[in-house]
Each structure stands twice: as C-alpha cells, then as structure tokens.
C-alpha cells in the first residue's frame, strides 16, 4: 500500500528542480540516464528529469539551488566527442543527452591544526604537494559549473598568493568536478578551502569595533538593560519596539 505525504496530493505547485507533472501537451526530449532512454520534458533540469523518470534520488540531490555541490553530473551530447560537466539542479536537459551523476568524489584531505599553520606557500607545499604538479591544462576551469577560474587559483596557490586563491575560489561549491578531470590529481576545492581559512584567520584585518563589543559584553555592560527588557510586559515591549528609531 502506498504511503502518502501531503506533498503528493498537491502536484499543481510542483516545479523548479522538482519533477513536472506529466502533460501530453509538453514538448519532450529523450535523455539517456546511465544509458537508459527516458522521455522527459524539454525544459526540465537534469535533476527534474531523473525524478520525472521515476528515480528516488539518495545521493545526488542536496540544496537543489546550486549551493551544496551534491549533484555533480557528467554527460555527452549526440555528435559531439566532448565530455561535459554540470550540476544536475541547474543544467537543463537536451535531446540525446547521455548522463550520469557522480554519487561521491574520492578525495584526500589532510588533517591539520589550523592554529599551527602559517599563511604562506610552504603550507601548500606541505599539505597539498600535488598542487605543484599542475600542468596548466585548464581542465579544471573548463569543468567548473560555477565558471570559476580554477586553474588560476591553483597557480596562485603555487605562488603563495592566498588572497587571490580566496577571492577566486570564494564561490566554490566543492562539487568535485575539477578534481575528477585533473590529470595532476589535485583536489582543487580543498586547496581553495584551506586558502580561505588561512585568509580569514590570519590575513583579514581585525575589527577593533568587534573586539571592543566583545569586551563590553564580558564586562556585563548590557546586563541592566537586558534585565529591564526581559522583565517588560508585552504592552510595554510593544511600545518600546514601535517607537524605536531606524538607522
């Protein structure tokens, strides 16, 4: 017996990366999901198409909006020798597309104590020596579904330019497609993550204002005001709230 959750009874609003309702009027295309042919709506995302075809995704779906990197997908198109990469949640299907999701990406991540690292090139040499095997083939950049300049940030890591690595890798989703295509076996996204942490911890200028505020709280500067607010009746609080000025 089928068990229902409410979502199923209201298919009218089901859209986005969610599977669209079967509709004979809709323009359809054929896609090959792991080699098997399925008719899916022409305007579906790859993720929508996989679900439309009847798959229950376990690995390969996450935020469904292009932030989490769970849905790395590789595909080929008819009459084209190239391998393409994309996120299933943001890539629209094409007729004849042959696709496969990557359920997980094998990667290495050294264990380190962030408090004992130094923000310089030697840290990359020690933790990610393979970075220096980069042959500048640009495969990583071509594979990136975010259109980041991945090779450029790997080159920046080789120079020890942590700020550039941080800046260029900022929007990285850790989907792993760069690492899968890299002939030098670099795990680019982990290199970017290390650089961002080094930048945030060691290179970003400290905020004096923030330091001061933390000190004020430690010294219980706001206790009295808090206690007064916490004791207030709803009506008093309401007045206080609606009378407050706006910056």
């Amino acid at each position, binding site marked *: *017996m*089928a*068990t*229902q*959750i*409410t*979502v199923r009874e*209201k298919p009218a*609003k089901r*859209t*986005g*990366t969610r599977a669209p309702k079967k509709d004979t009027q809709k323009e359809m295309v054929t896609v090959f999901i792991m080699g098997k042919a399925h008719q899916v709506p022409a305007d*579906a*995302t790859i993720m*929508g198409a996989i679900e*439309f*075809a*009847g798959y*229950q995704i*376990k*690995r390969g779906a*996450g*935020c*469904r*909006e292009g*932030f*989490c990197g*769970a849905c790395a997908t590789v595909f080929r198109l008819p009459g084209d020798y190239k391998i393409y990469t994309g996120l299933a949640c*943001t890539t629209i299907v094409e007729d004849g597309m042959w696709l496969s999701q990557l359920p997980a990406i094998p990667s290495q991540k050294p264990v380190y104590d*962030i408090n004992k690292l130094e923000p310089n090139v030697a840290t990359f040499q020690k933790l990610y020596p393979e970075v220096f095997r980069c042959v500048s083939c640009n495969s990583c950049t071509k594979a990136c579904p*975010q*259109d980041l300049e991945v090779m450029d940030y790997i080159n920046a890591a080789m120079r020890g330019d942590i700020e550039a690595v941080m800046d260029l890798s*900022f*929007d990285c989703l*850790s989907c792993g497609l760069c690492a899968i295509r890299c002939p030098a076996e670099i795990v680019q996204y982990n290199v970017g*993550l290390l650089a*961002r*942490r080094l930048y*945030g911890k060691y290179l*970003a*200028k*400290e*905020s004096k*204002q*923030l*330091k001061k*505020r*933390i000190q004020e*709280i430690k010294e219980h500067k*706001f206790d009295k005001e*808090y206690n007064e*607010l*916490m004791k207030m009746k709803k009506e008093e*609080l*309401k007045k*206080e*709230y609606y009378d*407050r000025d*706006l*910056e």
Partner: protein
Amino acid sequence: MYPEYMRPSLEKVAQTRNKRFELAKSGKPVYPPMSAEEREEVLKKFHPDYKPEARRKISIGPNKGEQLTTEVADMLESHSRIKPGMFDLTRSDYETDVLIIGGGGAGCAAAIIAMQKGAKSIISTKLRLGDANSMMSQGGMQAAVTDQDPPTRHYLDAIGGGHFDNKPQLVRALTEDGPEVVKWLEDLGVVWDKHEDGTMQVLHGGGTSRKRMHSCRDYTGAIILRTLMDEVRNHPDKITVLEFMPVIELILDQKGQCAGGVLYNLETEEYFTVKAKATIIATGGYGRLHIRGFDTTNHYGATGDGLVIAYRAGAKLLYMDSVQYHPTGAAFPEQIAGFLITEKIRGAGGQPLNKHGELFVFPREPRDVESSALIRECLERKNGIATPSGRLGVWLDSPLIEMLQEKGYINKQFPAMHRQFIRYGIDITQEPMLVYPSLHYQNGGIEINDKCETNIPGLYVAGEVSGGVHGRNRLMGNSVLDYNVFGRRAGKYAAEYVKSAKLGALSLDHIADYEAELKKAKIQTALITPVLLPSYTPEDVRKRQLTAHYEGTLR
C-alpha cells in the same frame, strides 16, 4: 529572458527607477513602514497561516489538544519505522559521549565545542555532512557590533519581529553571544565582508532598526558551514561522522533519560543502535513537507525528522502553528520557482514593485508582514505579473542597487544571484527579478531553554528544529546566528552533562506506547515517519511501482 508580454511592465519599472532612486538616496523611508494595526490586518487576511485549514488539533503526544500546522500534525500522528522487539538493547553497535543528530551548522558547531570540552561525539547525518539549509543561507548573519547598536537593540528587533512571543532568555542568548560568534568564526577561518580597515561590513535586513547584517558575499552559509565541516574533519579521533545514516528513533533509559538513538543506513538498509550519555538533535526544518502546497527554498533533506523522533520520546513542542514564508522566492523562470532570493537584495536597496512599477510596501518589513503584503498585492489588488505557467509575482528591482551603491556591486556582493539568473538570460544588473513568497523556515520546534535543554534529561536541541528563539516569526540573519549560538551552547552543556550522567537500562518502550496512543485515539494512517526523503515521482510512475510500500527508502 522575460517573455515579450512582460515588456510594458518592465518598462514601467525602468521609468519609475530614477524617482525611486532620488527618494532612496535622500535617506527618508522609501515607503511608510506599517503600524502594529496595519501589520495585524495584512497578516490576518493574507498570511497562509491564517487560513482556516492551515491548522488542526493534534490528538496525541505532549502537545495533545493544541492547534498545530496541519502538515505537522499529520506527520506527528504516524507510525514508527521500527518495533521495540527488533532490537537487543543490552548491547550497542556504537557508544559515545554525545550523539549529534544532523550534520548541518548546529551539529558541526556542537561537535567542535563538545570536542574542546573533552567529549567525544558521533555526528549522524541523513545525507552528506553539510547537507543542510545552513549551506544555503545567502544574505548574512546578524550580530550587534557597531557603536550605535547595543545587543539589547538586537534583542528588541528580534522580539518585535517574533510578535513578542519569543522566549526572552533565548533571545538574550542569541543576541548577547552574537559578537563572540563573529569572532569565533573568523578565528576558524571564515572570510567576512569587511571594509579596508578591518571594520565589519554591515547592512540592514527585514525588521532591523540598525545595520547589523554580516555577510560573506551571498555565499554566507556556504562559507561558514564549509569552514565548520573542515574543522570537524580535522578531528577524526574525537568526532565520528556517519553519513547517509539518519537516527530514526531516540533511545531512552529506564529513568526516562535520553540514551542515544537507532540509526538507519539509507543504502544497505541496516539498523544500528547508538548508546550515548547525551543526545543533541540538530536536524533542521521541514520545508520539504511543502506546507499549503508552497514551493520551498529548503534543502532536499528538510523533512522535519527531528520533530517526530523527539515528539515520540515525549519532548514538548513550541509554536508549531507558525510557518515562515520568505517574501522573495523566485517566480520566474519556472525551473527555479521557489528558490531563495536573498533578503540582502533588499538590505542593499532593492525594492519590491507591482506591475505598474510602483512600491506598495516598505521593502524591509519583518518577513511574515512583507510576504503577506506581496500576496495582497497579487491576489487582492491584482497588481501582480502572471508568468506563462500561471504563477503570480511582483518585481524585485535589483538594478537600483547598482545606482545606490556602485557599479559592479551586484557582481561582487551577489555572485550567486547573478549566476542563478544569467543562466536563463536574465541579467539582474539590468533587469529586476520576479518574486513570490516561498516556504522558508520552521518558526517553532522542540522547546528549549538557554542551555538547549529540553524536558527530557540528556536531550539537547539546537538550530531550526528548536522552538522559542524566534517566537512566531524569524528575522533575516537570525537563523545563521541561531545555529552558531545554540549549536555551541548545546555542545558545551551536553559535554558538561556527560561528565556526571549515568545511564540505566536502555529502552524503546516509548515507541510501543506511542503506537498504543495512536490506536486509542483511533487514528487511521498509513504514514511512517521520519519522512527522510521527499518524493517527486510522477503519479503514473508511482502507480507502476507495485512493490514499493513506502515512498522513501523502505522497500
């Protein structure tokens, strides 16, 4: 690209832009903020929570007799996946100090702090570590750090936004810990948006009376959570991460203390038991239940699992009658309908406009009020713009931001939003976005105190799954803060608790008791929970799936 028929309306937006720019630049409010009475009226008439069928009475459990969100009541009145007799509880498959259920922001923060306090932990997560709504927050995190913004002002904003229903001690914890959290995250390596001299860049959010929104471009959650995850993975000897292994029931002991949970391996479909001196639920929210049929901004795994396992074990829920709809979900193109468009857009000066290119609401009302005003503009005043698939929306004028801030601001501050739309031929530096409210946040949850304790000894709760912090409406930027503040607190207090905790014999009797209660209340349901995964399989496919007796993973 927008269809041709929307052109006249888009032209009106462009025509009114200069005048709106002049007003915004003058520093005066661009539209009068609503009074208490106006807020109440628009909420009553247009907020989805106020529809009569939005709530119903729950017949069993700790909140018996209370009105809850209908879909939540349905989910709670359901069967367990297991029967107590299936397990030999005299031995456990795993043993640890702290079992952390959920690998999002709150779970990771809790594990790090618990580890620093000397406690070992297991993070059980349904999908991958970091698969959570925490990853998706774009706009920022509130924390009162400027001279004109004492944390007590943050308190006032949060409690007013929550309709004065928030638990005061929780709002104090939230706002008082805020500045410390900013620093803690920076020390872990989070790259905050800052000015040249190191001062924090702060913006407004809906319902804030001071600029206190800290951000990491529009990847705030992603930057924070990946930093926390990396730190978790740097301590494999103290923190064990079990992915695709959700906890599907809690285990209690004879004394009624929480003593761990039952794990379910999503892939091999095996069950395991974990014995733990303390347990932290950090499973996040429930957007994937698609309450009221709404699209959602939420993660695939946001199915309210923590609520139901805690409820079965006897934990009390608070404000589970209140749902947050984010004012600006995408309404066009169809492929991204419901997706989050960060409130930072309005914080930076973006304005919601009707089909005539006119402002109809103050752009930064608290979320429930702003959402209701958008719905009113579309449904009652008929000033919305219809999409080809029949959705309604209003414009969110982003090009204005570049005029108010500087050229290039959008690319620098909103790379994710720019990317999201340019894929479909819409350049948000040149054209507005079309938006409509989208199901966003679980305002209520399992009731906690400021130590994250619940009414069950040894059970701690942190993050979206908890209730009381935000009253009946959360402000932007307070959820990122919430998962950090209360994740840290849960880790701290659970680690202290385990030092003296003594467990008795383990028990799953509460599962059988709950089943008996269902029967006694004559509830007929085929639903088995936790839901674990939403299903988007089309109806005709499902009809052919003859041997699937459970839609998630149980076969």
